[in-house]
């Protein structure tokens, strides 16, 4: 059994105005694991992440990092282990140049000058930003700033990396690049990854396990388990990856699969296996239930829209009498 990198017990938090943001949150993330936290807007994801390195303190309950209780040990002890990359890179990069920003953390950790320079160099290299050392943040593109913010946290060499919406607002290339970097950091350096995201198509390839957070932990499990749970998805405004949907459609056309693939890689693997078993062919057909099944499937994933429609209809019937 791997040891727990982060343990959260009965955490709750209320905003200064009294609104409850988190209620009885429990979570355990193991060393070297990759975990996603999903949930609707305003579910308290960012607030939760801020508890992981002790910036916010819950009313009761505990956050432990490698067995050290946040709040009982010195702040530096926790910050050294848990690096948070915030969503807006303009919040993250606050120093005049990229070099200063990357050096900021290591200097605060009290490292010697040579070591600080060493770490900055390494972080720049990891993110492919070596020529950016003396650039000012306001001259960079959004994608570059996003990478620089990750570098600024990596220079502290955390054992746990917490990312808030790392793929939001990025162009496809930067997005793919960033996903690759995060995976590599995990695989090569064994860094534990926790990601809050809405990017469902990135989840299957990026993480091992998913938590659904909506003030409290609604569900927990592998991506397969979460994406198969229609009820949870509906309740929390969540989506499933497009590949997953496509294979559900294929199933209506008689494609035989037990566990639906979530990513392109899985899909390729799955198709190859199926075609090989069937002697080099893929057999699809339309039978009497196909259309009905497809219609049902579509309505299943239109729950966002159907919820809206129901609300509108409700409002209309409450108001004036509807005309035929």
């Amino acid at each position, binding site marked *: 059994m791997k040891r727990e990198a982060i343990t959260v017990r009965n955490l709750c938090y209320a905003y200064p105005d009294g609104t409850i943001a988190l209620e009885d949150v429990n979570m355990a993330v193991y060393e070297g694991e990759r975990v996603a936290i999903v949930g609707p807007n305003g579910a308290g994801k960012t607030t939760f992440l*801020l508890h992981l*390195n002790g*910036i916010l303190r819950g009313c009761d309950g505990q956050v432990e990092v490698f067995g050290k209780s946040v709040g009982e040990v010195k*702040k*530096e002890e926790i*910050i050294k282990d848990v*690096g*948070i990359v*915030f969503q*807006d890179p*303009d*919040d*993250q*990069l*606050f*120093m*005049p*140049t990229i*070099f*200063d920003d990357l*050096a*900021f*953390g290591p*200097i*605060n*950790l009290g490292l010697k*000058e040579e070591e*600080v*320079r060493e770490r900055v160099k390494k972080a720049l290299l990891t993110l492919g930003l070596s020529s950016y050392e003396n650039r*000012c*943040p*306001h001259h960079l593109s959004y994608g570059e700033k996003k990478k620089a913010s990750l570098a*600024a*946290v990596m220079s*502290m060499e955390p054992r746990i990396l917490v990312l808030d919406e790392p793929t939001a607002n990025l162009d496809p290339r930067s997005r793919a690049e960033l996903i690759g970097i995060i995976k590599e950091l995990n695989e090569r350096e064994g860094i534990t990854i926790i990601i809050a995201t809405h990017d469902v198509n990135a989840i299957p390839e990026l993480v091992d396990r998913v938590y659904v957070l909506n003030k409290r932990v609604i569900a927990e499990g592998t991506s397969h388990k979460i994406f198969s749970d229609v009820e949870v998805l509906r309740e929390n405004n969540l989506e499933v990856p497009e590949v997953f949907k496509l294979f559900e459609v294929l199933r209506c056309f008689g494609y035989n699969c037990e566990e639906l693939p979530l990513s392109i890689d899985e899909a390729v693997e799955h198709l190859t296996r199926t075609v090989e078993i069937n002697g080099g062919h893929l057999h699809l057909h339309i039978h009497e239930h196909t259309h009905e099944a497809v219609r049902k499937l579509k309505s299943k994933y239109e729950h966002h829209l159907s919820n809206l429609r129901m609300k509108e209809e409700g409002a209309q019937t409450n108001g004036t009498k509807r005309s035929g």
Partner: protein
Amino acid sequence: MIEYPEIDRYASLDSPMHRFDPRAKIIAFLFLIFSIVIIPELKIVIIGLFFAIFLLILSRIPLSFVLGHLKWVALFVLSLYVMLAFTFPGKEIAKFYFLSITAEGLYTGSLITLRAFSAVILIFPMIGTMRFDTMIKALDKLKVPNILVQMLMFTYRYIFVFMDEFQRIGTAMRSRGFKLRTTLYALRTIGKAMGMLFVRSYERAERVYRAMHSRGYTGNPKTLVEFEIRRRDYILAVSIIGFAVSLHIISFFLP
């Protein structure tokens, strides 16, 4: 595209002023600026002005760039000049109706105007020849109080972010039919937009502080810099300071 207030646009040029060590440069120029603005003698101030222009030319900063900035200073200083010319008591040399221009007024006005121009011109070879972040680091090395250095640092970093933000608010307003006129409605709307900017800045400040906190901010950030002061820098600094001192010696002995 917005025009950013980039005083350090020409920091990447190469000139004796660009190669001047930032710390020595700041000290020498500040000394020179302060000596020129306290000279009581017009002739000496003119010498100072020429020296300022000489240093500016030495710095290779394009004159059009400098003039673009000077015009705002001129607007301010020249209005002061006119006011002094008419109100300063002394020997009358011309009269328009009830207003009279005095020789003393003209003299004092010219003195103040030329001092101001010399000082502003000197700012360019001083600040315009290094990147702004280099200047901040130099100030830090010169033991300027850390809190001031931090304020400069964050102002420099976030002025662009806030300008972008205000620009976005403006674009959003214009694209929904807002026109800037001098009506009460327009002014009130601008006021509200400014208010929004303050709220956003406040929220951003909170997020930035969290990010700083997350990376171990203790209230006293240090930066790593490699400044190397050479003999050339000493010579240059001493000659600028020497020039400043000699201006005062001359003015002291002037009849």
